[in-house]
């Protein structure tokens, strides 16, 4: 069973009402809403939610040309940390 929720970000369980609350609290840009709600910080890193939340902001009245994507962070896909551990170069001590 599940209660009625409309999810925008499934990784971090951020719903439409969370984004509306953030908007009402004065957080109106994608970077601000990301920091307030945590959307886009889960395992998919925004692949599933960024565009949906951008559309929500446009619906709330932000002009489309003012909507900016958040900064992308590496790694862009889930990567085992062992690869980075093995990425020592010869000149690394």
């Amino acid at each position, binding site marked *: 069973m599940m209660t009625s929720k409309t999810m925008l970000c499934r990784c*971090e369980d951020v719903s439409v009402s969370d984004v509306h*609350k953030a908007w009402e609290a004065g957080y109106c840009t994608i970077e601000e809403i990301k920091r307030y709600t945590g959307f886009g910080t889960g395992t998919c890193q925004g692949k*599933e939610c960024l565009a949906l939340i951008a559309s929500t902001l446009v619906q709330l009245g932000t002009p489309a040309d003012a909507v900016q994507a958040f900064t*992308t962070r590496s790694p862009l896909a889930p990567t085992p940390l062992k690869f980075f551990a093995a*990425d020592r170069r010869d000149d690394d001590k």
Partner: protein
Amino acid sequence: MPPLLGSTPPDSYPQILRSILPPLGCFLVSRGVPQRLHFVRNKALTIDFDGRPIRAFEGESIAAALHVAGQPVWGRSLKYHRPRGLFCMDGHCSGCLVRIDGVPNLRACMQPCRDGSRVESQNSFPSVETDLMAAVDFLFAKGMNHHTLMTGSSLLNKATQRVVRHLSGLGELPNSIADTVEKSTMLACDVLVIGGGPAGLQAAIAASRPDSKIVLVDEGLALGGSLRTDPRYGTDFVRDLLDQARSCGVTLLSQTTAIAHFCENDDPVDPEQTIVTDSKRLTRIVAKATVHATGSYAQNIAFENNDRPGVIAMRAAGRLLLDYQIRPAQSICLVGHSDASDALRTTLIDVGCDVYQVDPTKERIVASKGHSSVSAAIVQDIDSELQREIPCQLIVIATTPSPASELARQQGAATYFSADGGGFAVQADARGHSTVRGVFACGDVCGYVGPKRAMQAGQHAGRSAADYAEGQ
């Protein structure tokens, strides 16, 4: 609906169906859910899911095997412990994380079945179907605002944090220390193409010149990207394209993901590099020109309980059908309308599915119904606002996919928000030039265009990139 009976698929069937139904061994498809379409398959094997043996075939992903075994819930979400399972089947949505042979948080859709693999669901107690932690969903039925969950007492805060940290998080640590990993390597090439879908394959073919080194990396289990999920193209079409790419001398690196692009040490002598990983090692690729053909991510739309297992992307349904030859379900509610969704609808009906198409001009979906998986879609008439229930086992979402522009953005290429293009699209001209010299983009990453136009754009961008590389 004609029954799929007889030794050969009738000529009246579309080419794509005749290619997926084998010449012999085309059996009567019984009305069950979901189902493999024929018995001429690779080697049979068995995987274990939470102690239950599951029949699978070589070449199937864990996600495909779990889906066809009628197992919708594979894990629970981070905060409210809502059920999670298949959505995009493309390695992007991360809804399908499972623990495989003691390694946590692996994407079930990106892991091939191996005989004897032990697959475990994550984030639930005592079982993924009956998770006591799902009580959080009910306790916070109107949502949990974590900004107001602070307590006044610092001691109580500390105690609460310990409990919360124990309850949340993703999976548990691996059983053992990681295997030895191979040291990272370097690779230099003239043109690096990122993405092996319609745009990328065409770009790589168009970029190839005598004595030039073209490298194409693609994340998927098999090359072809969205072509493998689209009944208008399918696996035969991909095979021809791949043959063409190989005969042009393109180095095709499948199951290889571009995870970062940077310039180390800000040193002009130290060139910019794209970091890719496969299952064995990390590789730093230095390219004279880069073509971003990363395509687009399947998206969900907003409606009540849109995260319920059984709500899947159109490309996931297409992949089940074309790539794995699995009928996704008996009764399907198709939401959204496009040329691609029309083609999928026809193919689904051909394999015996009952498809209800939600006509976006007349009605819209407002909720999914069911328990741990979908049992119905609730649709509302736009004019009368009357709601009705469409019983179904899958809700297939055919909305505009969103450009996969992260890597291009890391490389400095400008993007803009395009509602029609599905999200943040890379700015590129007709010949594929982005706003950064030596960086090219084509296809859905510049705003969703679909495979046909993506292939044309790929040819232009591939030629431009080859010209640029030659001048370096």
